[in-house]
């Protein structure tokens, strides 16, 4: 190596090391950063749903007893289109006075069922009871059962299903 090409500031070794680290970091970033985005991508598309769902004529539901109703919605997740089932409980109090509860437990999202003997909703996951009006009787749930917004249209009971 002639001294003409010799830098007083840096030897060949350090030069190669620096160039290698810069190139290496650049390449790792070009592949690595998009990879993070690639992995979290589905988390960024929030499911959205906004629909009025008909539960049929109000007269179908007995007075004063929470009665289950389930409906299916088509959801697309990635490459799969599937029918997802949702549950609700209709509590008809008088003529047109009605409450519709979601069956999703407010603790950690198991599904509750109506237990006629106990006169309450029961969640099997952590043994929680909710009263007929959704209020927490015992167990870990932090708040009463959620309620759907309702309306009557041409004699039909409708609930407002929202997600996202």
């Amino acid at each position, binding site marked *: 190596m002639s001294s003409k090409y010799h830098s007083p500031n840096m030897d060949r070794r350090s030069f190669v090391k620096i160039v290698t680290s810069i190139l290496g970091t650049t390449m790792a970033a070009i*592949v690595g950063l*998009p*990879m993070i*985005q*690639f*992995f979290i*991508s*589905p988390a*960024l598309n929030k499911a959205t749903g906004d629909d009025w769902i008909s539960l049929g004529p109000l007269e179908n539901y007995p007075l004063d007893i929470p009665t289950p109703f389930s409906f299916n919605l088509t959801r697309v997740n*990635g*490459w*799969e289109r599937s029918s997802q089932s949702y549950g609700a409980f209709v509590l008809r109090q008088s003529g047109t006075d009605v409450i519709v509860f979601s069956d999703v437990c407010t603790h950690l999202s198991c599904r509750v069922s109506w237990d006629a003997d106990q006169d309450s909703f029961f969640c099997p996951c952590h043994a929680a009871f909710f009263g007929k009006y959704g209020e927490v009787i015992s167990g870990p749930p932090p708040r009463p059962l959620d309620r759907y917004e309702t309306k009557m249209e041409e004699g039909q009971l409708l609930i407002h299903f929202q997600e996202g």
Partner: protein
Amino acid sequence: MAQSIFTWLDERLGLTEIYDTILDRKVPKVNWWFTLGSASLFLGLLQGITGMMLSVYYVPTPDHAYDSITYIMTGVQFGWLIRGLHHWGASLLILTAFFHLLRVFFYGAYKYPREFTWFTGVFLMIGALGMGFTGYLLPWNQRSYWATTVGSEIAGTVPVVGDFILRVLRGGTDLSAVTLSRFFAMHIWILPAVIIATVCAHLYLVIRLGISNIPDRDS
């Protein structure tokens, strides 16, 4: 501070020694053809990384394989990039590995004491071709379906045991869900495991024996 942590670790783990043995080896004066082995290694790592990423969304069943890849290409951010890297990287890896093999051959670098390095290298080349063959079926489109039909049919022409090989490859007489699933298992578990072990042996030998000189007129 950083220096003393490093010294502490180095004393126990022998980091400097590892660095010196792997990266500070003595090498003869070489040329650019000698970079092809490292290039293949780099591309192999890239295939591994992008492959792991693809397997986050890919499903190896006839009713979803194609749709899952369509989802990667259109529904996942940077899906085109990750799949593109894996797709083109596969061909490029075969090229770099093959030219690496040619270089070793024409420089006579496979001779004593490096016969075993050559042997592991040939094994790696076959492994990489196997990865290409099994990976090609995974998109489950017309091209991959018929390519695998033809490929396994070729294996079927071997005298006596041909039909048996064909049925082992396909997992039965027909190209089916069973074929797709076993090609996937070969592609992401079995061949990679074999290849990783062989790469370790290959590199161990390269480091232990050193790189051969470019042959001169007298040799």
